[in-house]
């Protein structure tokens, strides 16, 4: 479903951020992308939601050829890619439910459908009772769950999580990873970038290792 072939990314004449990366992810897979800070994990994810374009190589995600996509089509692609960040990136002046609803509003869904899907997504991540809370009224773990609900509410082709546990304590980290595993069990394709190799290995899922922008191999 996701195919990455010989993808490189470099900025000007500086050292390449990514060099000749190739791998693929099947539908319904949960894959961990590990490596130290600066290894290129976030850069690789940014190429997948087209925050940046690869300098060379081919990326295809479902029906989208990301290497050739036009600027006008980028919003369409992003509606099919859910992204979760370390810093949650919730809109402070919107409630939890309004933050989740945003993903549906931008695609022009009706009010009733927005309400229903938002409630479903918030229930799925176990935070429905806090739907009317603003981000500053939520704990880190709760805020990250809202972010996951926002990323999942449009049934994306893939959920990308960039250091999703970076701001969470140990318990919340385990809870969030358990949530991601549950979502994966119910069919979601997920790529998690993390520097915590041990945590990734506990899951017994595929783990890709990045070092200085190159793919060093994979393990389970």
């Amino acid at each position, binding site marked *: 479903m996701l195919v990455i072939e010989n993808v490189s990314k470099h900025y000007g004449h500086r050292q390449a951020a990514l060099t000749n990366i190739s791998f693929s992810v099947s539908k319904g897979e949960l894959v961990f992308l590990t490596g130290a800070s600066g290894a290129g994990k976030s850069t690789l994810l940014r190429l997948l939601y087209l925050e940046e374009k690869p300098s060379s190589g081919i990326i295809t995600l479902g029906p989208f050829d990301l290497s050739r996509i036009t600027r006008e089509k*980028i*919003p369409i692609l*992003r*509606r099919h890619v859910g992204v979760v960040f370390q810093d949650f990136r919730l*809109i402070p002046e919107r409630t939890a439910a309004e933050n989740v609803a*945003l993903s549906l509003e931008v*695609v022009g869904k009706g009010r009733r459908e927005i309400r229903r899907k938002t409630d479903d997504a918030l229930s799925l991540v176990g935070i429905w009772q806090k739907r009317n809370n603003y981000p500053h009224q939520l704990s880190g773990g709760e805020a990250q769950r809202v972010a996951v609900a926002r990323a999942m509410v*449009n049934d994306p082709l893939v959920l990308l999580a960039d250091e999703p546990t970076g701001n969470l304590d140990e318990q919340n980290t385990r809870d969030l990873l358990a949530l991601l595993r549950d979502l994966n069990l119910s069919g979601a394709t997920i790529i998690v970038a993390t520097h915590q190799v041990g945590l990734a290995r506990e899951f017994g899922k595929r783990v890709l290792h990045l070092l200085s922008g190159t793919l060093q191999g994979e393990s389970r």
Partner: protein
Amino acid sequence: MRQLIRIAVEMWRAVKFELLPTFGSLLTIFLAMILPGIVWVTSKNLSRADYELRKNLIMNVFLAGELSSSRADTLKDEFLHIDGVTGAEYISKDDALSKMKARFGGEILEGLDENPLLSSFELRVTEAVLEPQAARTLVMRLKAFPEVDDVVFAGELLSRLGKILRSVKLLGYALALLVAFTAIFIVANTVRVAIADRRKTVEIMQLVGATRGYILTPFVLLGGLLGLVGAVISIFALAWISGYISQSFVMINFLMPHEIVAFILTGLLLGMVGAIVATRKYLKI
């Protein structure tokens, strides 16, 4: 409807933490737009005065004494044969008196034993006579008649008025251009601040797949609204100033309804252009 509500909410969110700067921008737009408005109203009224005067270009030819009716007729014919004269009317001393009484009331000449007014001819002349050289030639020709005592013509005043009118219009164009740039600049800055304030929100909207149009429409409309409200306040202020001048000094004509609409739409357009200028840089990938 839902879209409109969304846009209105987004517009409010864009300015709610920047109320004071937004109000400042509005005030500046108002001040900027009132200047060309004043020039417009002034030039419009000068044009009207100029048109009225040109339509009735009159040369008053005062006579040394009263004429017999047959001499008045022949003199009238002779005047009408002169280049630049298109009409002539003999005003006897009595006619002049009754005209004056009709205009200023009977009391003004009370106590006088005899009619002090002069008989005269009112000559209607062509616009060509506005040329100082042509006016001088005509006055000389008229003065050559033995019956003519003096010739009075407002031509010089008119040509001066024409010059003023041209200057006012030029000033108006220059001001309008300056104001257009100022308004665009002010709105662009306000919208730029509003976007910068909401940078995080804008990024998140992009992330979940919002199109440029979806994100930028509220900002562009915000710019348009700033221009529109600024123009509306300017119109009210202009109307008040015009009313005050009309009551206290001289009757002046205010803008026609379609001119008011054009003025306000110009404000709206300038605001939107300013906002587009500000938003153009954003959302590039």
